[in-house]
């Protein structure tokens, strides 16, 4: 009974897509609890993606993907164009916040067992979405052609190169030559503004499609109550718009007050520059620092790759229909251990890179 209610949307959305028409959209209904607070992260995620697309498109109007000139164009956009600092700041803060929100979204789905059948494919498309983000960041960091972006990219290339078999090929693919120059910048630019956004839109579309066909996860078993419904239009759409507007204004104000940093222009001859890792990659840097020499591949590929694989394959590892966290202690303990490990490594990385006097 409850499952039928949860899946009311799944029956309607494909029909809507097939028949088309605004009127059909007005008829779509979703469970009222789909706008509860712990589902808020998905809406915020979508709002942040929209903000990233919008701010990125605006920045692209002024950007020149040529080493040196790239820096000047970003500098011009941020400091000479009206609201340029706000737009770039929104782009900067939005992707950072997106990582946090994606993590919380995934954690929420993990805790309530939303990855279980019949929503396995929803989970997998969400994990694929998450795994796409590092590529966005790797490709986007080089674009301002500043010291931090240039040298962070060099570090990342060296980490990627340590991946057995495919490492050198991947670096060659990204860089297009022995040095990080105009070819690398052009390739990463195309990746960042064309290929990756297309992949992201596709994944978001698939995520929504699977969500519509497989249904939203309902309340945990034992808490089943008759669920009132609300119309998708305008209830859900209006709330999403509210989230979008609040996010845009909030991030805009933050960006206005604390503009995104733009460091010195990249100097490829200045090997003394040691980039500090971003917060989200501190754990990975620490892993690479722990496993040195021939074991570097453990930290750079095997452990993070294995973890990503484990998260993606979770619906096939935990196959029981049980969704209550208290009855899934194995998954909960494993999640807590992984989170504790990531936190510990990140703290170690923070101490190493931000608190040591040599930095």
């Amino acid at each position, binding site marked *: 009974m409850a499952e039928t209610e949860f899946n009311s949307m799944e029956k309607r959305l494909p029909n809507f897509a097939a028949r088309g028409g605004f009127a059909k959209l007005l008829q779509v209904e979703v469970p009222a609890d789909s706008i509860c607070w712990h589902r808020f992260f998905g*809406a915020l995620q979508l709002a942040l993606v929209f903000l990233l697309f919008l701010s990125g498109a605006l920045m692209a109007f002024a950007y020149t993907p040529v080493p040196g000139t790239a820096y000047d164009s970003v*500098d011009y956009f941020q400091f000479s164009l009206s609201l340029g600092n706000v737009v770039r700041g929104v782009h900067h803060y939005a992707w950072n916040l997106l990582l946090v929100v994606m993590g919380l979204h995934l954690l929420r789905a993990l805790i309530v067992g939303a990855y279980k059948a019949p929503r396995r494919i929803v989970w997998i498309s969400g994990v694929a979405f998450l795994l796409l983000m590092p590529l966005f960041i790797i490709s986007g960091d080089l674009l301002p052609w500043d010291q931090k972006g240039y040298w962070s990219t060099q570090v990342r290339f060296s980490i990627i190169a340590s991946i057995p078999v495919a490492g050198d090929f991947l670096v060659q693919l990204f860089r297009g030559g022995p040095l990080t120059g105009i070819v690398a910048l052009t390739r990463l630019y195309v990746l960042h503004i064309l290929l990756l956004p297309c992949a992201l839109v596709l994944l978001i579309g698939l995520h929504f499609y699977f969500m519509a066909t497989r249904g939203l996860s309902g309340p945990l078993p034992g808490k089943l109550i008759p669920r009132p419904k609300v119309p998708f239009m305008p209830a859900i759409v209006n*709330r999403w718009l509210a989230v979008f507007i*609040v*996010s845009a204004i*909030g*991030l805009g104000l933050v960006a206005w007050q*604390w503009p995104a940093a733009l460091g010195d222009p990249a100097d490829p001859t200045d090997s003394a*520059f040691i980039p500090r890792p971003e917060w989200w990659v501190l754990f990975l840097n620490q892993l690479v620092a722990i496993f040195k020499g021939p074991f570097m591949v453990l930290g750079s590929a095997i452990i993070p790759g294995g973890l990503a694989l484990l998260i993606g394959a979770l619906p096939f590892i935990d196959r029981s229909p049980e969704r209550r966290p208290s009855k899934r202690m194995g998954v909960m303990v494993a999640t807590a251990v992984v989170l504790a490990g990531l936190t510990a490594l990140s703290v170690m990385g923070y101490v190493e890179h931000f608190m040591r006097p040599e*930095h």
Partner: protein
Amino acid sequence: MQKPMKIGVLTCVLLSILGLFFFSNNVTGAAKQTLTTVYSKAAPTGLDDPMWVKIKALEVPFDGKEKFAGKKTSVTTKAVFTDSEIHFWFNWKDANMSVTKEAWTYDGKTWSHLKGDEDRISLLFEINRINNFATKGCAVTCHVPPGAPNAKEGKFGTATDAEKGDLWHWKAARSDPAGYADDGYLAKISDTKGGRKGDAGKGGDRQNMTADKSKPMYMLAPGKKLAKNGILLAGDAVEITDYSVFKAGDVVTFRMPVAAEGSFGDIKAVSRYADGAWTVLLSRKLDTGHDDDVAFNPQKKYSFAMALFDDSKDQDSYDSEALTLEFKK
């Protein structure tokens, strides 16, 4: 507003604050000194304004070049900005106050030049980005390694037309007595000329000598007084008609500062030499509106470098590394 919505909005705000905490950090790598210029509603009244005591100083190390090779010195640097101006305060030790600048001296029979140069401090900012200036400072404009496109013995300049620097040049003998620092710029070097040029307008100094270069041509006009440190300003000079008024031991300024006008005179200067140290205050509008000046935007950071000249010529200097100037409101 429904309760879930309130919680949602609250979470959004909390995440924004969390994001701010984590992501607004200033990501830098290798050590590069940063001079923080702090905001003040009112401009400093002078070298001894109490605000200078409160402002945190940056001790900038300088390395000697050419005849000063191997020597080191340092300059205590502070800066404040108002809604329209920026003010730099410098203090450095110097055993001797040098303002001679080859002044004329008379021995009772003939005129000759005294030995001695002047003390100077200069700052170079980017108007348009100078390739690698942010990391290498003066090494890419003034002390260029052989083989670089702008490497010309004894001449300074940038390598391309697109690169342009704003040069502030305080000279103890040739600009300070007139109350300003030379405002110039650094452009592309050519085969025949250096890239150092003066801003539009009037300024600099005028050489005080006769056509045959044997003696001074000007002296202090009646009713006028010599400027600071006994320097004769070009505006206070009158042509010498009777050389018999001079007696042995008399000294006359050779390089007479000219009152600055236009963009050349954008940088006001106040200084004092006392207790074996120079204290210099340079003030300028944040944005002069002149295309030969860097326009400071308090939201932005700027790379700059400094050089110190201790009674020496251009090549014999003490140079700082590249520095960052940031604004804090």
